[in-house]
């Protein structure tokens, strides 16, 4: 097996709030291999965006980071601000959800690109910078005629292509895409997904693709990590996870997604938990249809199940299971009043 580009180990990101720490990301572990697209799915507020930014060190003030993000034998969590700033661009990139506000309205597209290249390769001749920028833009389907235009002269989809090109112009080894298609229309979304899924072929870039849309994961990703309340509860190859989901949350999430083949409605009762006071033990247990006695008592272990890794007592490990742990847990009634 090849060395992972990026290894995240027990990463935690907590925010201080007046009611106590909010555990947006609470002990997340995953690897990203070269050229791989890893989908990170979960409902809003599960910490997936925080995770994506935490990896790049782009967190708001007041966020506390702990754990390991290993990139090229360095732990980014402990790296200095200056060190990370140098890595952002040539090594690490970020693509945003809302492309409309991410470009400086007073600067031409060309200025955005030339500034980015200059920041990391100060000796680059201007002509070369232009050439490289136009080449990347072309790969994203932006005609060279538009190189000197202003951001407001582009449509939403075009701007997102420009943002992607900006993130890729220095050919980073690893890119986080945070819901890059949420603000876009169906057809444009499909175009952008196509571009992102092709990254590995054209740019040799690994991608952490954050989305709430399971369809997009199926379309664009090699592996998927399912997040719930700050934890990755299941990860594995997309085809396996979608065909044989092992964690009850993944199963419920897949069932409640409305797709073209949906014939009946299904939903998960209750609401995602408060990250300040998460449920004890497995965080999904209050909503889990398969909850057992052990679930609220003990934190579930990370267990390999086939090609997947799952955090659920259903899959053991048996040697840690307390006596009577497998008994069914009688759940409290969940009313609409508690829903999301």
């Amino acid at each position, binding site marked *: 097996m090849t060395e992972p580009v990026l290894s995240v*180990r*027990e990463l*935690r990101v*907590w925010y*201080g*709030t*007046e009611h*106590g*720490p909010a555990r947006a990301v609470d*002990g997340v*572990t995953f690897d990203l291999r070269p050229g791989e697209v890893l989908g990170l799915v979960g409902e809003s507020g599960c910490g997936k965006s925080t995770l994506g930014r935490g990896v790049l060190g782009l967190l*708001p*003030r*007041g966020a*506390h980071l*702990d*754990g*390991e993000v290993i990139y090229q034998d360095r732990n980014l969590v402990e790296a200095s601000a200056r060190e990370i700033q140098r890595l952002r661009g040539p090594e690490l990139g970020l693509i945003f959800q809302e492309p409309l506000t991410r470009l400086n309205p007073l600067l031409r597209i060309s200025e955005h690109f030339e500034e980015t290249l200059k920041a990391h390769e100060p000796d680059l001749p201007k002509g070369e910078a232009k050439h490289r920028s136009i080449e990347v833009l072309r790969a994203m389907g932006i005609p060279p005629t538009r190189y000197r235009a202003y951001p407001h002269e582009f449509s939403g989809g075009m701007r997102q292509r420009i943002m992607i090109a900006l993130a890729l112009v220095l050919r980073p080894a690893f890119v986080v895409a945070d819901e890059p298609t949420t603000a876009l229309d169906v057809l444009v979304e499909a175009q952008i997904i196509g571009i992102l899924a092709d990254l590995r072929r054209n740019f040799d870039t690994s991608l952490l693709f954050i989305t709430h849309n399971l369809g997009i994961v199926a379309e664009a990703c090699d592996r998927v990590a399912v997040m719930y309340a700050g934890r990755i509860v299941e990860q594995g190859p997309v085809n396996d996870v979608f065909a044989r989901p092992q964690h009850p949350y993944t199963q419920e999430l897949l069932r409640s997604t409305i797709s073209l083949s949906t014939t009946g409605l299904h939903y998960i009762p*209750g*609401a*995602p*938990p*408060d990250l300040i*006071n*998460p*449920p*004890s*033990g497995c965080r999904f247990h209050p909503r889990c249809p398969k909850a057992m006695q052990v679930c609220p*008592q*003990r*934190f579930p*272990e*990370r267990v390999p199940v086939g090609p997947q890794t799952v955090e659920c007592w259903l899959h053991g490990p048996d*040697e*840690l299971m307390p006596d009577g742990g497998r008994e069914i847990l009688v759940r409290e009634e969940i009313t609409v*009043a*508690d829903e*999301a």
Partner: protein
Amino acid sequence: MATAAVPPPSDMGDVGGGRGRTRLRRFLSGIARPYRNSHGVGRFMLISGTVLVCLMLVMAVFSPLIAPYGFSQVADATGERFGNHLEPGGDHWFGTSTQGFDVFSRVVWGARTAVTVVLLALAFSLFIGVLLGLLAGFIGRWVDRVLVMIMDSLYALPALLLAIVVAFLLAEHVGGGTATAALAITAVYIPQYFRVVRAATISAKEQTYVEAARAMGARPITIMLRYLLSNVVQSVPVIATLNAADAILTLAGLGFLGYGIQPTEASEWGYDLQRAVADAGTGIWWTGLFPGLAIVLLVMGLTLMGEGLNETMNPAIRVRRLVSITMPSIDRATARRDDAAGGTAGTTGSVDDLRKGDVR
């Protein structure tokens, strides 16, 4: 948030009877909210500003009790004149002025004048400005265009000039005095409230809840009062406070130029400063310094309050309070890996205990 959806038990009881109280509580908590939610520099500004303003208010309300003499008194109870240009000290803490007034008393009474004029002016201009702004923003079309044209023109005139002209015209027919000064200042601030309220109305009009009200079949007047007004006025406190500060300066400017209140009608700081300009050349500092300081303190108080409010209420510049937290510092990474490699239940137990300890 799930917790927000669970009501506190006190709300479960008598719903009908609790309503009035709920409203009052909401109103009070609305006033207290900026004080509670603010922090850091914003909180400091808000509180110090409020303290200053309250001090000045106390001075204004209780000026007959605080001031040793009347504002136009030039002799004490025995009929003996104070004398002019007495240095601070003795009976006259701040000295006496060219005309033989007691400077301290003038400063105290001046607070009353300033507060009265500004409150009157604020009330008038708020009422007219908000009303016209709402109308223009809501009705749009030619009403809006005409009003905007007039208000913009008024706004383009230097504020002081506009106040002078109005005071000048009114003085001719109404006479100088508190009411004239208040009306002059009113004229200055109507366009400001108009602009703010109109802009807020136009943006509120685009809100979905206003369209929802239209979809319900609400009449325009209902929409304006029940849906627009209550949301538009939220932008008013900050502006009103800052404008009050500005109004104090305009009033003083009017007084300084001789278009404010005459010394026999009420005490006015700007007027006193005008008289003090001539004194400055001869080295008499107390006639100008104290009224000037009074203006500075009141304007500062209001500005601090306004900026403090802005800091806590304006989402565009608000900072989230940073609460420092301590993360449990056990090396769970290694604990976990040990587990995966077949660690003992004991290690997991400790992690578990820790997690349970964290909950509540």
